[in-house]
């Protein structure tokens, strides 16, 4: 479509220029071809960039603004700038802290279990001698299935009389009406759904462990467990940290499973449930936005801890430099 824009001569120039800059970096002597490349790069990225900024950037700023207002859709006339009062209201509210504690608990426990099971599943998918294709195919089903569908499966499994699991308990047991059994059922549902994703990320790390290294360790008399902890885990560390980071952030926004399983009853609601309920039932945009900002800050802190403290390489940060 842009054949007429540039002659063969300056595209050849582009190739030469590219080679030249890759040898000595940071010389901004731009040839015509180089400029064309920059222009094309910007034009190709612009739509994606604009959509992402428009749909996330603006609402974030807007939600910070809303969080500083008294803004209840039921009483729109009382909208008023009130500074940090909403933050005070949320942070001194016991429901918020209960939801926060519940979310943290669910996140930590389910990610821990997922990590162990995911590692086991990754080893199976990577090393099994028979039926590797079948195992990988079947393991993808929990990953792909709609979370709400899976949640209904667990919900009905634990419903008294209807469910095959509930019937294994005492005949009058209704586990989804008690706090602790509910929490563990939520964790079970979450673990079932997301273990395959964790396993796939870990499997990518496993593929990086050189076979020779394992053989050499075995020759030197290392047991299977030693080979796992002393050889495989250190090599896999970057993959493990990325997998944990992504799953932790994802687990922190848990919503679908809780919505279907308990709808937040008996103090099983997460911070996402609180925010949603506040919007739909309370129609209080000021408080809702305050919670949104607080969740955003918490997630940012978690990501910061992973990246700074554990040294997780942010995926994409090395951006082509390694190859």
């Amino acid at each position, binding site marked *: 479509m842009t054949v007429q824009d540039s002659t063969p001569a300056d595209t050849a120039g582009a190739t030469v220029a590219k080679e030249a800059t890759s040898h000595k970096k940071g010389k901004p002597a731009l040839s015509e071809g180089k400029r064309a490349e920059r222009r094309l790069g910007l034009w*190709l990225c612009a739509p*994606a960039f604009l959509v992402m900024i428009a749909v996330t950037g603006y609402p974030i700023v807007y939600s910070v603004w809303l969080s500083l207002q008294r803004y209840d859709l039921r009483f729109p006339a009382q909208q008023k700038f009130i500074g940090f009062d909403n933050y005070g209201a949320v942070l001194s509210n016991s429901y918020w802290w209960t939801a926060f504690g519940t979310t943290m608990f669910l996140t930590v426990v389910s990610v821990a279990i997922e990590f162990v099971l995911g590692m086991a599943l990754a080893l199976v998918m990577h090393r099994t001698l028979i039926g590797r294709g079948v195992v990988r*195919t079947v393991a993808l089903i929990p990953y*792909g299935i*709609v979370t709400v569908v899976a949640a209904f499966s667990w919900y009905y499994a634990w419903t008294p009389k209807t469910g095959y699991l509930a019937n294994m308990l005492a005949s009058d047991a209704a586990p989804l009406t008690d706090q602790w059994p509910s929490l563990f059922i939520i964790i079970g549902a979450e673990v079932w759904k997301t273990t395959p994703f964790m396993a796939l990320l870990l499997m990518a790390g496993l593929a990086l462990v050189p076979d020779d290294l394992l053989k050499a360790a*075995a020759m030197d008399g290392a047991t299977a467990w030693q080979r796992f902890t002393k050889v495989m885990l250190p090599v896999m560390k970057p993959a493990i940290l990325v997998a944990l980071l*992504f799953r932790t952030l994802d687990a922190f926004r848990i919503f679908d499973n809780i919505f279907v399983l308990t709808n937040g009853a008996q103090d099983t609601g997460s911070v*996402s449930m609180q925010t949603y309920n506040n919007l739909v039932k309370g129609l209080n945009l000021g408080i809702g936005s305050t919670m949104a900002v607080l969740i*955003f800050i918490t997630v940012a802190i978690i990501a910061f801890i992973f990246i700074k403290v554990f040294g997780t390489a942010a995926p994409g940060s090395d951006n082509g430099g390694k190859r």
Partner: protein
Amino acid sequence: MVMATVTTGRKVRWGLVDILVLVFALVPVLWVVSLSFKTKDTLTDGSFIPQEWTWQNYADIFKTSEFLLALVNSIGIAIISTVIAVVLGTMAAYAVARLEFPGKQLLVGLSLLIAMFPQVSLVTPLFNIERNLGLFDTWPGLILPYITFALPLSIYTLSAFFREIPWELEKAAKMDGATPAQAFRKVIAPLAAPGVFTTAILVFIFCWNDFLFAISLTSTTASRTVPAALSFFTGSSQFEDPTGQVCAAAVVITIPIIVFVLFFQRRIVAGLTSGAVKG
């Protein structure tokens, strides 16, 4: 020893482990399938396998406009979002993988931020913005956030695929007088098709799966997707226990996922592992 030849004993052991994985992954799915085929009378017998089989639940849900409209919404919204996200993602990923330009790090960083972003933080502000713009409870009202959250996935996966494509061919095309744009269209695009297809599957699964936006940014059958509709499902008459019908609807929306997984297992695994972990 690691070097030992494959013995029958080891095969059997791996076989048992494999079966364990199959049971783990399949039981909850089969349970929903089982419930969807149970008759009203046997629904509460607690047996894993239906004692009496019936198609009645499926017949019922396809008679209600509540489910049919939701299915149309789900399919339409997911396909439109996937197409747009993959087209925009392909353009951006090509630039990220192949071109030098200012702002590349910014785009990669922004994508990473959005991939980690808690979606619930957007629900309240988007609700109000969409209400004011008249986008609330419309298809575009859901498509826009879906595209946004699918873009990082699509940019990462695609740029990983694009890095695997041989440079030389593009260079050769440029030597022969093709512009960068032509090299993109005529040389790289056909080579990239498998990666683009894989990404489309992953993005589709993501949009198909969404519940939070679907339930917060819709209010009627005009745009409510199946996952959201399921949670409001009350059965064809209000005195009926909806369990069988919820399960039938759940099975229907699981079918595309099963098809993707069965036919494109290799691609999905490659797609999920390529973008996520490098070096």
